[in-house]
Structure formats: structure tokens, C-alpha cells
């Protein structure tokens, strides 16, 4: 334990604060992209929206559902742990990993589908049915934003796997589970970012 903290409660409080500050940082990262998106959408108008309509709404919506359910399982795992039901908590986290992998799988499916049509980011874009530069910009933003988000999902899954291992090694229990709560917070952020990405990239205005 750190020398600086007199007791465990203080240390945990500090860890929470640190995580929230970090989440603030992550929020700004995505906020910059949202700003860029807004500027291009306002500037291009209709042809941008046309490209947006080309994204499969059902895919985006299923992915949103997947992440929301996974967030529920994270919260459930925390609840179970607080009540010393560690087996249940472990399986809850396994569900989170499964759902996270499902999310990534659906994204991979979507990317493949797009790439086959010729929808690739930036200079590689060559989808003739939407030749407008606005479409190219929309899809480039789409790839970058969902790609950056997917990286965060991978990071979150890594954290989940680590938490599963810690539970199995009995390093997490009803009285010592700060890392579970903080990892859960991170997963919730990843979920919330997607909930903003979803309407921007899939649902028309």
C-alpha cells in the first residue's frame, strides 16, 4: 500500500477520484471527435446525411443493446461481490466479456461488409453509389470514431479478464473490490461513448 495514505478508506477515495479524473480526460478525447463530426455535418448537410443512411440501423442498434446489457452485467457483478456472491460475480464478468466480444464481432462484420462495397477510410474510399466528398468524410469519421471506440472496448475487455483472474485468485472479495468498481466505471464510460456514437452514426435526424 502507498506510504502516503493513513488508511484504506482514504486510499480508496483517492483511487475513485483518480479514475473520475481519468474518465474526464477520455471524455475530452471523444468530445474532440464529436466536434469535428458536428462541423462537417453542419457544413455538408444533405449529402452527409445520405451517407449516414447507408449504415445499417439494425447493426448499430443491436450493438447498442449489447453494450447496455453488458453494462448491466458489470453493475450486477459489483452488486454480487458486495454481497459476497463471488461465483455469480465471476460469471457476470464472463458475460460482459462475451458481450464485448459480440460487439467487436458485429463491428468486424460491419467493417467487412463496408470494405467489400468499397467503403474504406480516406484516400481508399471508392464507393461509386455515394461519390460525394461528404460521404467520404462521413465514412472516414465513422471508421476513426468507431475504431477508437473499439480500441477502448479492447482495453476494457483486458481489464475485465484481469478482474476475472483476480476473483479466481480470491484477491477480490466483499470487503476488497475497489478495482472491480473502478474497472466497472471504465466499462460504463465505454458504453456511454457508444450511446453517443450510435445516433450520430446510425440514426438519421
Amino acid at each position: 500500500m502507498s506510504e502516503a495514505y493513513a488508511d484504506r478508506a482514504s486510499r480508496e477515495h483517492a483511487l475513485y477520484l483518480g479514475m473520475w479524473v481519468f474518465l474526464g480526460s477520455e471524455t475530452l478525447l471523444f468530445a474532440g471527435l464529436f466536434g469535428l463530426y458536428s462541423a462537417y455535418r453542419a457544413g455538408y448537410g444533405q449529402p452527409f446525411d445520405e451517407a449516414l443512411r447507408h449504415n445499417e440501423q439494425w447493426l448499430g442498434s443491436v450493438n447498442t443493446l449489447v453494450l447496455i446489457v453488458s453494462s448491466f452485467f458489470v453493475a450486477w457483478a459489483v452488486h454480487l461481490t458486495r454481497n459476497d456472491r463471488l461465483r455469480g460475480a465471476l460469471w457476470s464478468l464472463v458475460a460482459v466479456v462475451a458481450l464485448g466480444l459480440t460487439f467487436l464481432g458485429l463491428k468486424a462484420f460491419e467493417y467487412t461488409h463496408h470494405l467489400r462495397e468499397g467503403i474504406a477510410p480516406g484516400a481508399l474510399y471508392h464507393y461509386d453509389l455515394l461519390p460525394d466528398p461528404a460521404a467520404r468524410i462521413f465514412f472516414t469519421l465513422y471508421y476513426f470514431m468507431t475504431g477508437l471506440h473499439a480500441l477502448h472496448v479492447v482495453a476494457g475487455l483486458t481489464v475485465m479478464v484481469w478482474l476475472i483472474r483476480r476473483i479466481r485468485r480470491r484477491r477480490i472479495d466483499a470487503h476488497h473490490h475497489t478495482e472491480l468498481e473502478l474497472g466497472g466505471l471504465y466499462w460504463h464510460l465505454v458504453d456511454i461513448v457508444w450511446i453517443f456514437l450510435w445516433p450520430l452514426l446510425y440514426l438519421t435526424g
Partner: protein
Amino acid sequence: MTALPDFWRADRGLRSWLLTTDHKRIGVLFFIGVSLSLLIGGVFALLLRLELLTPDRTLFSAATYNKLFTHHGIVMVWLFMIPAIPATFGNFFLPIMIGAKDVAFPKLNLASFYVYALGAIVTLVAMIAGGVDTGWTFYAPYSTVSLGRVGLVATGVFILGVSSILSGINFIVTTHTLRARGLGWFDIPLFVWAIYATSIIQVLATPVLGLSLALVGVDHVWGLGLFDPELGGDPVLFQHLFWFYSHPAVYIMILPAMGVISEVVSTFSHNPPLSYRAIAYSSLGIAFVGFLTWGHHMFVAGMSTFDAGLFGILSMFVAIFSAIKVFTWTATLYGGRIVFNTPLLYFLGFAFLFVFGGMSGVAVATSSLDVHWHDTYFIVAHFHFIMVGGTLTGFLAAIHYWFPKITGRGYSERWGLVSAMMVTLGFFFTFMPQFLLGNAGMPRRYYSYPDRFQWLNVLSTAGASVLALGMILTVGYLAAAIFRGDRTGANPWRSRCFEWRVPSPPPKHNFAEPPVWQIGCYAYDVEDHGSDDVGAKEAAS
């Protein structure tokens, strides 16, 4: 009570340094890193000033010159200026000043040093392996089409940004959660407020820098094209994204220096600050309003008149917060008991250079005037007045102020005064001519220039040589002092501030037991019986 070994001697061997979690040692490691960076950036500066002695080729080709000024900017901004005071003196003194044994996350602290080192190495390797010539501002579309190591340099700076964020998180949490018992927010030294406000900016602004560099880097390497007009992109949007970070970044650079000045002024005048809250709140004000002014870098970039007006007015507001500080520092001297030492001479230099530099900022925020001055040497002079006249002066003041506390020794006061004057005068003659060059119409980043600009360029280079000599002199006598300086006590300046109540140098965990301070850090009304150990007074009272 047996004396604890100081932090230098507490653990021995290279491993104990490379794997330390002692915030003071990490501060020293950062000090080595930023000092080397200052040297490298300074060498780049000297080389480009030498090139500018003649209107055409002096020593280098245009291609090399363009890389020189780019590398100078990148090294100075990200390897030196951003971490210079927070990661060194912030790291060293923040915990002590709030009565803590260390920062909130000591291992994270060590990690932030290694991340810094990694970022610095990647950036420098990229410079050696070809370098970049885009200017430190990486404007698209030139940055995405130029031949150069844009992707690699962007990666290096991105990593440096991560280090900055990690430090920021650590300092914010430390200040919130590790203040000693009885130490409220308005009992802590003003330097802590400065570091705290700086950390808020670091945490919120740096991600946007990471994003803009990532977008440019990916564009350069893989043709992402978000700022490429041929692919439907808008190059001006890059500027918005970049300056959204880089304007608050200048407040990351100046706020810590202001924190140092607050401490120096009170200590050497033996006076509490005229208004503690004015300084504390204005630090937060700068941090907040500083996020709203980025457009003043873009008055001629093609923005609407309305936006230009809005950004201009907000820029005027942020200037007021600095003015409040300057008034407060000056008035703090009034009625004091002033002992004139090298740190105070640096304050005098800071006051003139920072005020003039800041007022030149008010001038360029005046939109019609900026049309003439934008991207000329006037702007170069403006920001160097603040960054060198402000931040570097603050950094030097910090070194001279806290040298006895960190090393337990004193340096030659005479050499200190001489080199402070050399640095200030050398600086003045380097950059004052550049205001005139800008007025005359010399744009920045110019390898060759019209003949009539030559005499001012020669004057500027002469000043730079004096500045360089002053800096070398400073290194000289300070290095000598480390090994042969007279040993000092805990509180040679008779300061009330908390760091002077621990031994010089401090022991590894700062305090034998958590301190409970009865006497405030600016309580100069408490009588001083000549003892240099305020701690003894505390124990006695």
C-alpha cells in the same frame, strides 16, 4: 530524535533511483530530463539564429533551417516547457507543502517519468532519422503531405501528452486527498494552487492534442484525409482542434511559473500576499477562460467576423486574471522586510518581461492589429516574452529559490546576480528587436528575408549569444555549488512556507510523523526570533 537520512542518501545505488517511488527523486529525474531538453532546444535556437545573421544562406540549406525551427519548437514546447516546473518542482514540493509523505499514486508518478522519457526518445529519434519541417503547429494540409517523419514525431509527442495527463491526475488527487489535518483549501501555499490549476488544464486539454496529432499522423501515413480538401476535408478544422489544446497549453506553461513567483515574493518580502484569494481564484479563472480563447490564433484563417469578435473579447478577459496577479505581487512587497537575493532579481525580470509580453498579448488580441502582426516576428516576440521572460525566468527563480532546500547547500549569490542580469539582458536584446521586425513586416519561419531586415536580425542573434552565455554560467556555478557550496540550514530565507520546516535536504518520507501546523505558510506577522526553524517554534508553542 535521531536525524533521518536525507532523500539523496536514504537508498543507494542506481536501481534505487531508477525504481524509486519517492516524489523528490522523481522530481530530480524529471529535472535532468527537462534540463537536457532545454539544452537541445537551446542549441536548435542558436543554430537558427546563426543562420539568420545573413539574408540568404549562412550555414544551412532552407530544408535544414525549416527543420531547425520545427524541432526547436517541438522540443521546447513539449519536452521542456510543459513539464519544466510541474514535473520537477511540482513533484518535489507539492506533497511537502500539503504535509503529505508522497503523492497519491507514487508508482504512477514513476510511470509518468518513464512515459516522458519514452516520448522524448521517440521524438528525438524521429528528428535524427530525418525530422520534420512542418513547424511545431503541424498545420494541414502541409503536414499531411510533407516529406518527413510526421507520423513518428506525432507518436512521440502523443506519448509525451500521456505523461502530462498522468502527472495531472496525480497532482489533482494528491491535492484533494492528502492535505494534512487542519489544512483547508485556503491554507495551502499558492504554489499548490498553481500546480492544481495547471493539472486541470493538462487533464482536459491534452487529449485533444493527442487526437489532432493522431489524425495528422494517420493522415500522413495512411491517407485518412480528414483535413485534405481533395478528399473533402477542411484544413481550417485542424486549426480549431489543434489550438483548442494549444492555447490552454500556454497556461500550462505559465501558471506554475506564477506559482513560483507567488512564493518568492512572499518569502523575500516577508509579507503575506496582499490577497491570497485573488491569486488562488485568478489561477482557476485562467484555467477556465483559457479554454475559450483559441480562435484568436485564427483571425485571418477564414473565420467569421462574429467568431473573431467573440474570441477577441474572451482573450481580453483572460488577460485580466494575470493583471490581478501582477498587482497583488507588487503590492505584496509594500511594507515588507525585503532581502534582495537572486530569486527576487528573477522576479524583477519576470515582472517587466511578463507584463510587457502579456500586454503585447492584449495587443494581438485586438483583431485589426493582429491582421498585420499574425505570423510575423511580432508574434514570435510576444510568445517568447511570455515563455522565456515568464516561464523560463520562473524556472530559474525556482531553481535559485529551492536550491538550498533540495541540495542542502548554497550557491554564490554574486554569480547568481550576474547571470540573472545576463539572462535578462540577453533575452531582452534577442526578442525586443523581433517586435520591430514584426512591425516591419517580416513573417516568421523565414529562411531568407529582404535585406532591410538584416540589422535587427543581427542584433537579435547577438542577444541570443548573451542569453546562452548567461545560461551556461548558471549551469556552471550551480554545478559547483552542488559539490562545494556552503551547507545551509532548513530555512536560509526565513520563509514561513511549509517546505522550509523540514530539513534541507528533506528526508525520504518528508516527515517523521504527519505534521500539524499551527502557524500558517504566510504568517509573517508571527515574530521571528532569529531561529531558522519555524518547526521548533511550533513544537514550543
